[in-house]
């Protein structure tokens, strides 16, 4: 398949997106549409019976080639609340261990009559590859390598929008290991696309090799940036980074870039603290700060289900004719 054909397959005849592989597939208007639709699904989630028949008869398969608890559960809960059937695939117990290729695995799953595949993989670009292989199914990227995690960025936009009334003009810092973070890549695109000013606060060893084209400022001085922020977005620091000699020690990282109790007192009134999880309490953020009112961490998780309902509904239920794609 040529690159043009592949690009054409990303939308259907009506121009509606068929896959969600990166935040750029939506653009600022598309993000706005997801946000608007999410309001309706937040309402559904609050009902005594938090379920609607919208995707009855559709099947959503989650294909996780990398471990995850919250993202997989969040997508599967979202699909079930839309009355879709859910198939779960986990790499460990699959025929991959018998040597079946990724492509054959994907085509096998699709042949069972799947309408959407939610794909996570440790290698960047796998969901895009899968989108090129499938014939009719929609593909949703649930995190690929260091590349993108678009539904995380969407739920973060929604959470910020709920607390602050919108993202336009907000000052947001993304703090920590930007280099190895797919969340940071999706969030930078989404936040900046909606008009926020994004600052990356990170040690030089944990910044990407090139920031060309990133709509961001960079700082290595957390204390000076902190009081001006509306949103502090902390990234998870993976312990493996120590063994790679990118950081001298966890304690030094916490002292320079962690949201300690002392730093939390520097927060502007009304500022919020976010984290995509899982949280390393005591490393990137002090344990007690996670539980303070400024923390939006549990809202992020709750909104995640509603946002993923909106994404699945947009791709599968909103009138997109998959056969003509």
């Amino acid at each position, binding site marked *: 398949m040529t690159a043009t054909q592949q690009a054409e397959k990303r939308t259907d005849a*009506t121009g*509606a997106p068929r896959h969600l592989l990166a935040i750029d597939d939506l653009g600022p208007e598309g993000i706005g549409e997801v946000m608007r*639709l999410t*309001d*309706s699904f*937040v*309402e*559904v989630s609050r*009902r*005594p*019976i938090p*379920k*609607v*028949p*919208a*995707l009855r008869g559709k099947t959503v398969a989650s294909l996780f080639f990398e471990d995850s608890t919250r993202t997989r559960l969040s997508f599967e809960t979202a699909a079930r609340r*839309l009355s879709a059937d859910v198939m779960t695939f986990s790499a460990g117990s699959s025929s991959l261990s018998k040597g079946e290729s990724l492509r054959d695995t994907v085509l096998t799953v699709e042949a069972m009559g799947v309408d959407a595949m939610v794909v996570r993989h440790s290698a960047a670009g796998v969901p895009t590859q899968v989108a090129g292989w499938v014939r009719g199914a929609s593909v949703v990227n649930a995190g690929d390598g260091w590349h993108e995690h678009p539904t995380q960025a969407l739920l973060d936009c929604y959470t910020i929008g709920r607390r602050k009334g919108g993202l336009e003009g907000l000052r947001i810092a993304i703090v920590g290991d930007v280099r190895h973070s797919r969340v940071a890549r999706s969030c930078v695109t989404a936040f900046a696309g909606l008009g926020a000013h994004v600052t990356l606060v990170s040690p030089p060893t944990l910044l990407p090799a090139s920031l060309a084209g990133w709509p961001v400022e960079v700082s290595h001085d957390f204390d000076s940036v902190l009081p001006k922020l509306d949103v502090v977005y902390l990234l998870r620091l993976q312990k493996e980074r120590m063994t790679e000699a990118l950081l001298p020690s966890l304690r030094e990282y916490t002292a320079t870039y962690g949201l300690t109790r002392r730093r939390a007192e520097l927060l502007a009134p009304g500022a919020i603290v976010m984290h995509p999880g899982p949280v390393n309490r005591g490393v990137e953020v002090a344990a007690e700060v996670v539980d303070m009112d400024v923390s939006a961490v549990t809202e992020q998780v709750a909104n995640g289900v509603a946002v993923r309902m909106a994404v699945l*509904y947009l791709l599968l*239920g*909103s*009138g997109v*004719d998959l056969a003509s794609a």
Partner: protein
Amino acid sequence: MDAEDVRRATWRMAHEIVERNPDPSQLAIIGLQTGGVWLAERLARIVGEVTGGDVEMGTLDVAFYRDDIGLRPVLPEAATHIPVDLTGTTVVLVDDVLFTGRTIRAALNALGDYGRARAVQLAVMVDRGHRELPIRPDYVGKNLPTRRDEMVDATEEGVVIGDVQVP
């Protein structure tokens, strides 16, 4: 129908609602997003004035319950807002125009997810015919014979077919 006709029809429908449901505390008036919301607000206000009690008012979007999902673009107009558990109440569903009945079918399914109402009644400003399901309104502003391909618009300012005003 002009604005005055709509006002009179609304007033009459509100009184018919009170006649059948004298206790406003047992009543919830729910407008369908977005066309039925103005009428539901007016009916709730008049019923409240006539009975001297407060009437629960809510809004309902039925997009996720429609039977044409996948056949045409279906997106909610606005989020549903139903402030009370509907178990035991009498619900008056309100829409601007009753046509095929499919929206009301979807609304009945949606209402079921908010509790078991004691009864559901239907109020519409215009019944334009062409039903595809066995559904009939309890309160009607005006019965209006139409062609299937015509557009009917019912607002506070009046009722219009296509762009010609109904006499």
